[in-house]
């Protein structure tokens, strides 16, 4: 399998969808938040890319912004690519991004997981609710500003 060069892929994308590529490096392409759905749709449905398998969606908290990372794979062209989106500058409480559920059903649980643990809202997701933690859990634990409460360790009933 071949990995797409980020710069090359950025060129291809910006030729078709204007104002979508923010920057690029050797491994990944940074797409603007507004155009992400359009770009993913383009990548999925255009022959020559045909990214039919959404390998993984995840998000990283870089303190000043969040980054949603898409790892795409293509069974047809036997290639893979990394798409990144920067969002939520200035510690937005609820950064929003378009859901890719309508392109890949595989995004269902992964987007819910990102929402649950990182607090990124996926617009147009049909069932966006917490998946691993319970409803009403305070905060989103994978954010860097989440305070782990050491007091919540279960008392193991030590006999004195």
């Amino acid at each position: 399998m071949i990995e797409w060069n980020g710069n090359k892929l950025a060129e291809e994308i910006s030729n078709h969808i204007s104002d979508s590529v923010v920057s690029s490096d050797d491994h990944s392409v940074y797409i603007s938040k507004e155009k992400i759905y359009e770009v993913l749709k383009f990548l999925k449905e255009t022959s020559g890319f045909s990214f039919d398998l959404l390998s993984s969606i995840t998000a990283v908290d870089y303190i000043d912004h969040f980054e949603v990372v898409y790892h795409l794979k293509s069974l047809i062209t036997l290639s893979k690519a990394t798409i990144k989106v920067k969002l939520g500058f200035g510690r937005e409480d609820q950064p929003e991004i378009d859901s890719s559920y309508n392109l890949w059903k595989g995004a269902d649980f992964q987007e819910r997981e990102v929402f649950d643990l990182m607090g990124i809202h996926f617009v147009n997701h049909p069932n966006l609710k917490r998946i691993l933690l319970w409803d009403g859990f305070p905060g989103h634990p994978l954010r860097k500003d989440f305070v782990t409460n050491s007091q919540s360790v279960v008392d193991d009933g030590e006999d004195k």
Partner: protein
Amino acid sequence: MFEFIYNILDAIIDIFIKDMRYESYIITAVTGLIIAFAVINGVLGGVLVLIWGERRLLGRFQQRTGPNRWGPQGLLTSVADAVKVMFKEDIVPEEADHYIFNLAPLLLVIPVFIIFSVIPFGISLYAVDINVSVLFILAITSISGLSIICAAWASANRIAIFSALRSVAMLISYEIPVGLSLVGILLITESMSVMDIVIYQSIPFILIQPVAAIVFFLGSLAEINRTPFDLTEAESELAAGYQNDYSGMKWGLFYLGEFAAAIAAATVFSTLFLGGPNGPILPGLFWLTIKVIAVLFFIIWIRASWPRFRIDQVLNLAWKGLFELTLVNIVVTSIAVIIWTDLDSNRLLYIGLVNWIFAFPFVLLIFKLLKTKKYQSDINSSSYYPVGSDSPKFKKEIK
């Protein structure tokens, strides 16, 4: 047996008291109690041994040891279990219907013991000989369905209701082929008494009525909820089915009833189809025990080897398979019975021969109808998803 004990008691009483009032009634009652005590305790002991035997055998089938700690070879394991069950806390769910909840285990256990009243343990070793005892057995066994639905309904548990509905559906479906499978025997022996049937079996009826025997065996497996028809308490689906909310001795009664039913089914099968207590030299009770153990071994063996059916397959098998088989069996047997009316010793042979000839084509036909075709192996079949069919746009660039 009844007369035997009655006479002994009569003689003993005559020694001590003369001119006792209502003497015959009292002695009848005492005799009945003694026989009931003997039979019920015999079955209870049998259940304990069966539980141990089943666990031990299943263990060996699976290359485990099975229980071997309490008593020699673990024989006392089920005794220890029984003691444990008796001392466990009896929990009744708050929303349960208490009376029915408590009644249900009894309803399951009592009919099973009643069945043993008509079973001949030896040629003249029986509690009662009713002239319609085959019908009696069929009637009594269907009470267990009522018990299960009582238990499920009273415990107000949805999973239990599932189990009970499955159980009733199965019971209703399998009652019919089981009942009809015995018609062939009744036609041959011209009697509904189990004692007559036993005496008639110079050749075991499994050789003369093979189809009926298979149908009856499968049907009784379904009625006692054994693999492959253990849908009622399918552990992987319904946890424990209708017993979900039972604990302590009430649960113990269900367990007891289940295993006693297994013994009862094996006993009835060996009485009706394997010749019951008939056998050379040794006493009848010995032969019956041997046959019952053989049937139980087969039941356990099946449990160790096969998975269970789905509910629609179970009902399909009953209505589309076994039901037709029994009808065919009745027709073939009745024709044979009409042709060979004289009661010489070759009559059974002829009827059996006809049955065997007709049995197999029909078995095959019925199973063909059940639509089980051979799996077409499609290993390494050409994938119709175009993996690697297109090349990426930057083919020349090597990463």
